[in-house]
Each structure stands twice: as structure tokens, then as C-alpha cells.
């Protein structure tokens, strides 16, 4: 499996996946909590993500050869490292499943396909498995090839609705700061899309002056996400909470949508590829997590680990994920904060300590 990526590819993945998952079920959920102020939640959370990303990129610059597991093993010890990976695994698996259920909503509702969860999940799972067998490099390249067309489709779906939107719906802004703060805490789980970088620490090809490009791409992606949400809130106002999934509701205002035919759905379909790319990225993270937990370093695809991903994907068959998830997140948000916010902030320190320890003790064979 070739997992090498360059910073340009990394930046483009950020650009594609940040708006990718923020425009399905999340806007309506946020609108339910905060009304038309939901865009403020998204903007603030993405700002926090930006700060974390800066720390993570700093760590990438400092790191020369170590994987995350090596860094954690050398600095915080194996037991703590395992706990961190278990939290990571839970985080990415739940993100993966929620993203899949949201994408399923788009296909089963908007595209009027009478399909069941298995009919949706099996082909998506096959795609994820195939992407795992090809390595992260293939995902990065596909994203590189598709990002222009995905962004064009996104713009095509957003620009015209934006001209039709009633921007006064957004006023008054930030009426209840306490509620906003509470929503940010409750819904922080839907953010931190940069986590995949943790699992590529030793695979990123070092290039000069690339951190600004990555940050610019992240900011652009974030602006898209915020803009999408403001358009959604401006179009539907206080009724936004009832319109789910957001993108297909907004795209009906697109320039190609008319009573004669929903050509905008073709754009929506192309944009949906960013969701599938994001799913492949999360599947990769989950796979690497499990490899770290079970200390598997085989270059061939480990079918036991793939089976665990498959089992996670089958959970929506057993119970309604979204309903239980909101309750579970009341508790899970605290451990998740470790990998979402504490770890990136401390990563530069951990990387420095790991490299220093290598220099002092010559610890290379055990971990590297």
C-alpha cells in the first residue's frame, strides 16, 4: 500500500472534505438548536480547527520519520498510546457511520431510490475496501483529479440560491451566546476533519513553504462550509430545521433546477463524490488506528480489520444511529476532545520530545 502524499494533495483533501460532510444532516441539526445562528457555530468550530491544524502542521514540519504510534509510544508510553488510539478509533468509526447515514438520506430521499441500508452500504463498503487496498496515495490522487469538478459543482449549486436568499433571515445575529456555546460543545464531534493527518505523519513528503498552502486550502474549504450554511439559513429561515439533507434542499434553487427537470441533481451527484472520498479517508484512519492498536504492520490488506469496519457500518441496521449518537455524545465529547483538540495542541511538543529521546538514547529499532 502506497500511502505517500505531498502537501499539495493534503491541502486539496482538506479543501474537498471540509465542505463535504458539513452539508448533509448537520445544518438542520444545528438549526434545531440555534436557529439561524447555526452558521456562527460552524464558523467558530472551524476557527478552532484552524488553530489546531496550525499546531499539527508545525508538528509535521518538526517530524522527520515517526508515525503517530512511535511518537506516542516514546513520549507517553504504550498503555496511554493504546488508549489514545482506541479513542481515535471510536471517533473515526462513528464519524464514518454518521456520514454514511447522511449520504444514505440523500440517496434514499432526494434521489427517490427505493433502497435499503444494505443496498447502500455494501457498494460503499466495497469502495472503501478497494481504496484501502490501493493506499492513501490513490485516494489523494483521485481527490486531486476530481477536486476541480467537485468545487465547480459546489459553486454551481450555491451561487444562484445565494442570489435568491433572503439575508435578513439571519438577523438578529448571536442572540443567545450561552446556547451557541452549548451547541458548539455538543456538536464538536462533527468537526476536526484534519485528523487524518495524524495517520500520515511519516508519509508526508517534505516540501518547503507548504504550510501556507494547506492553511489557505483549509480556510477556503471552511469559507465554503460557512457560506453554504448561511445560504441554507437565509433560504429557509426558522424552518431550516425541517429541511434535511441541506444540500439537496438548497440545490433546488440552483440555476439549472427548474420545474421541467432537476438537472441540479447531476451536480449534486458529482458533489457527493466528495462525501465518498471523505468516507475513504475515514476508513483509512480507522484501518491505521486498528493497525496501531493490534500492532499489525503487514503491507497486505488485513481482512480482520476490514471486517471490523464492515461491522461498524452495519450498526444502523440494529438501531437508529443519530438518535443514540446525540445522547452518547453528551459523554463522548470529553474523550473525543483529547484527539480533537488536546493532541494537536501538544503534538509539536511530543514530536520534539520523541526526536530528542532518539538522539539521547538511540531508540530507533524498537519503534521506527
Amino acid at each position, binding site marked *: 500500500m502506497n500511502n505517500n502524499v505531498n502537501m499539495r494533495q493534503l491541502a486539496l483533501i482538506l479543501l474537498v472534505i471540509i465542505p463535504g460532510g458539513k452539508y448533509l444532516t448537520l445544518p438542520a441539526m444545528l438549526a434545531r438548536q440555534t436557529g439561524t445562528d447555526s452558521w456562527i457555530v460552524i464558523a467558530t468550530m472551524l476557527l478552532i480547527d484552524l488553530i489546531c491544524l496550525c499546531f499539527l502542521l508545525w508538528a509535521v514540519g518538526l517530524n522527520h520519520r515517526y508515525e503517530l504510534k512511535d511518537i506516542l509510544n516514546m513520549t507517553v508510553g504504550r498503555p496511554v498510546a493504546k488508549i489514545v488510539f482506541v479513542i481515535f478509533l471510536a471517533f473515526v468509526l462513528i464519524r464514518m457511520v454518521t456520514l454514511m447515514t447522511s449520504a444514505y438520506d440523500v440517496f434514499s430521499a432526494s434521489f427517490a431510490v427505493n433502497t435499503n441500508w444494505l*443496498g447502500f452500504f455494501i457498494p460503499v463498503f466495497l469502495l472503501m475496501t478497494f*481504496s484501502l487496498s*490501493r*493506499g492513501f496515495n490513490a485516494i489523494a*490522487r*483521485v481527490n*486531486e483529479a476530481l477536486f476541480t469538478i467537485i468545487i465547480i459543482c459546489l459553486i454551481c449549486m450555491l451561487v444562484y440560491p445565494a442570489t435568491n436568499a433572503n439575508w435578513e433571515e439571519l438577523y438578529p445575529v448571536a442572540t443567545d451566546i450561552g446556547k451557541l456555546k452549548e451547541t458548539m460543545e455538543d456538536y464538536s464531534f462533527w468537526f476536526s476533519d484534519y485528523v487524518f493527518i495524524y495517520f500520515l505523519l511519516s508519509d508526508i513528503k517534505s516540501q518547503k513553504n507548504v504550510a501556507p498552502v494547506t492553511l489557505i486550502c483549509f480556510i477556503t474549504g471552511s469559507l465554503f462550509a460557512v457560506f453554504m450554511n448561511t445560504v441554507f439559513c437565509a433560504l429557509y429561515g426558522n424552518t431550516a430545521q425541517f429541511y434535511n439533507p441541506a444540500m439537496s434542499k438548497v440545490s433546488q434553487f440552483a440555476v439549472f433546477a427548474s420545474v421541467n427537470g432537476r438537472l441540479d441533481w447531476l451536480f449534486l451527484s458529482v458533489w457527493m*463524490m466528495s462525501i*465518498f*472520498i471523505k468516507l475513504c479517508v475515514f476508513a483509512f484512519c480507522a484501518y491505521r488506528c486498528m493497525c496501531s492498536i493490534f500492532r499489525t504492520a503487514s503491507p497486505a490488506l488485513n481482512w480482520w480489520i476490514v471486517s471490523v469496519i464492515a461491522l461498524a457500518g452495519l450498526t444502523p441496521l440494529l438501531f437508529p444511529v443519530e438518535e443514540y449518537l446525540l445522547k452518547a455524545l453528551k459523554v463522548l465529547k470529553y474523550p473525543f476532545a483529547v484527539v480533537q483538540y488536546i493532541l494537536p495542541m501538544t503534538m509539536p511538543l511530543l514530536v520534539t520530545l520523541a526526536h530528542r529521546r532518539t538522539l539521547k538514547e538511540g531508540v530507533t529499532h524498537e519503534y521506527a
Partner: protein
Amino acid sequence: MLWWYIIRCVTHIKGMNSKYFTKLSQLYRGCDDFRVRTITNGCDINVVSLDTMCSVSKIREFVIEPLICVKAHGLKEILNSISCGITVREAVSFEQALSDFTNGYTLVFVDGEDGCVCVDTRVETGRSVTEPPTSLVMRGPREGFVEDVKVNITLLRKRLKTPDFKTVQLNVGRYTDTAVYVCYIEGIADIQVVEKIVQRISDIDIDGVMDSSYLSRYLDPRKTALFYRVGVTEKPDVAVAKMLEGRVSVVVDGSPMVLTLPYLFIEDLQSPGDYHESGLVTSVSRLLRFISVLASVLLPAVYVCLQKYNYQIIPLKFLITILNSTQSIPFSPLSEMLMVIIIFDILREANLRMPTAVGMSLSLVGAIVLGDAAVKAGLLSAPAVMVGALSGIGLYTMPENTLVLSMLRMAFTYIGGIMGLLGVLLGLLVLLLYMSSVDSFGTPYLAPYAPSVQKDRQDAVFAKSINDTLQRPDSVPNVNKTRKK
């Protein structure tokens, strides 16, 4: 009776005490075109040739006459007496002598000496240089490669008048002993790639090589590869242009198809005629080709999806037209489209194998009669026939990958019919993941788009004019980037 004749043929040359000759005579037992002529002029000399491979006039002029005229006592003297105006060499080993002999050389043996002298008396056969039928151009050179490897190398050398143009000769095939030339430009091509190619060809242990396509299978180690990762050209100007970018050409004796490596997917979009047009015209035509390839693979699938699942997408007037045409069709949209595609593929396959004299007219009549009759009989709808035909024609804008694309078209149509747009999207992603993970001698197959190589996009879907192309591509391994100073 036959054995008696063979033994007589070989043994009537008395007093020949030469290991090579004895070995050769034994190897060629039972070959009626194995000819031996004994000349006694100072010493006993045997002139051995394959009647079917050698030119009688050349043997007489360059071998027999000098041997009769000059009294020679050993191989060295024979070598000197006949070394005018033709390739003559002393065999360094029996294997080399045997190789030369099978290629049409005449061997001269002297009694009491183990070696032999090899004289090039090959008969010149084969067709003359003509315009290749598969790469017709409106403008530009019309010369095409032929089956003779020497002529092909000449065609390359004619365009590359530099000592930097290097050729490495290898022989492949236990029985065919086919000459294979690995050609490259020293100072441009990456020598590691050349060595890798030479190594892979040297490692081939096969009974025979009939065509360059045999080698391409060995140069591409993935047995299940979907797309060609070895380029093929019939035009020397194209081969030279590719070598000037750092690629390596492989010329195989007996094949008018020259292989070029490494090979990128985008190369199939490029046509030799593109380089005679302005950048804008080239870009437009390449974009058109790209769109037609995409449409060819995806259009039938999207048509089936829209008709079966997502008819809301189709504009109302268009939808009414389609409904009017399809309402009496007894098949489902998927079966109907698959039938159209299969009929089109059958017609194409039949047309390839039909004699040229009847091929064109039969396929034309077949297509019109079949299509028209099927629509009139109410078996197929006119939109389905139109979509199938359009996608079938569009496949030919990428001539190297037509069959693969045709296969993909069928697969996508099936997936689209079963799973709708979701299936098509996922199938497309799987295909892209596959293609982007493939490489050809270290060059990513989808370069310069995945990974993105900005500089190489000057000759991709959008092309710059040739005088703006200052550097050689980054995606192709080369050691000299400067093209224009």
C-alpha cells in the same frame, strides 16, 4: 528413405574436420533448405547457407567468387578476401554462428578449424514503407514502420541524426530468436528506465515472439492490468517525438508496431496531427475527444439510470419524447441498452474480420438495417439506439483503449441499471482509484492530472503551442529538462 537422403547430404562432404560445422549439420538434419557447397582452393572450404533465407546472387558475388579467385588457407585469410561491401565477421561462439545462420547469414567453414566466417547474405523481403492504416493524418509525415527491424531503425535514425541515439540489441525467443532493439536518446532518457526495460526483455524466456504485443505483455508485469501501460505507434515521427521527451522505444523484428515506454493514459488523447495545429485548436479537439470518451463510457449508464430511477432530472419536454418512444418497448431500459451495446460490439468485431472489399458496405448496411428494423419492429427505442451508437462512435476517439472502454461501458451500464446514480458514482470512483494507483515504469498512469504535474499540463487535455513548450515533461523520467533554449 528420407533419413538416408539427409545422411548422404551431410556426409558426402568428406574430410571436413570442424566442430561448428559438424554441430550445425546435426542440428539441421531434416531441413531441405540447408545447403552445403564444398570448394577446394588451397584447403577444403564448406559454404553453408539456408536456401530460403539467403540471396543466391549475394552468395555468388560475395562468397563463392572471392573464394574461387583467391587462394585462402585459413579463416583469417577468407575473412580478408571477402570483406568488401558487406557485413562479414568471424563467429566468436557457436551460438553466435547459429544465430547469424538462422537470420540468413552464409557460414564459411575451413577444414581443420573450429570457427567460421559469417557473411551477411540475407534476402531482402517485406513491404516498402507506406502510410500506416491505423494512424492516418491530414497533415504531417506519412511514413510508417514496416516489419523489417532494420528499416524501422533506419526510419528512426533518419530523424535522429545524432550519436546520442543509442540502440541495444537483444534476441528473444528460443525458436524465433527475434531481434529486439531498445532505442533511446542518451542524455535525455533516464538510464535506469532503459536498464529496467533491457533487464525485463532479457529475462523473457519464451518459445517465440511473433509481434511487439508479445513483449508488451512482459514489459507490463501486472497480469490483470485493465489498461495498456505500454504505448504503441506505427509512425516513426511519433516514436522520435516520444524519445525526445525521454521515453524509450522498443523495436521488434517482424512487427510494424513500435513500443514506447513509459506510457500515460493521456497519450491516447494525443494525435500526431495535433502538433500541426495551434494550441487553441488542439485544446478544443482534445477536449472534444475527452468529452466523447467520458460520454461513451457513462452516457448509456446515465441514460438507464435516468430512465429507470431518476426521471425527475430529465427536462419535461425531453422526458415526454423519451416516454413516447419507449412506452411500447417490451424490455426494461437496462436490457434494451445492453442489447444495443452488444449489437454494436458484434458489428464492430465482424467488421474487423470481414474482407475489406465487403466490410464497409456490409457493416453500414448491417447497422442501418438492424437499427432501423429493430426500432420499427418496436424491439428497441430510437433514443436507446441513438445513445448506443453515439457512445460506440465516441469510443474511437481513444483508439488504443477502445476495447477496454467498451467493456467499461457495459459494466457501468449494468451497474447503473442495478444501482442507479449511486452505483455509477461508486463505480467511477473505483475506476479512478484503480487508474491512479497504476504506474508505468515509475510514471503515474493518470499524470499530469493525478498526481497533478502543473508543468506537464502544457501537452495534456489543454495544449500549448509547440513553441511555448520550453521543457520536457516532469512525469516522464528524463535527465535533461531543457527543450528550448
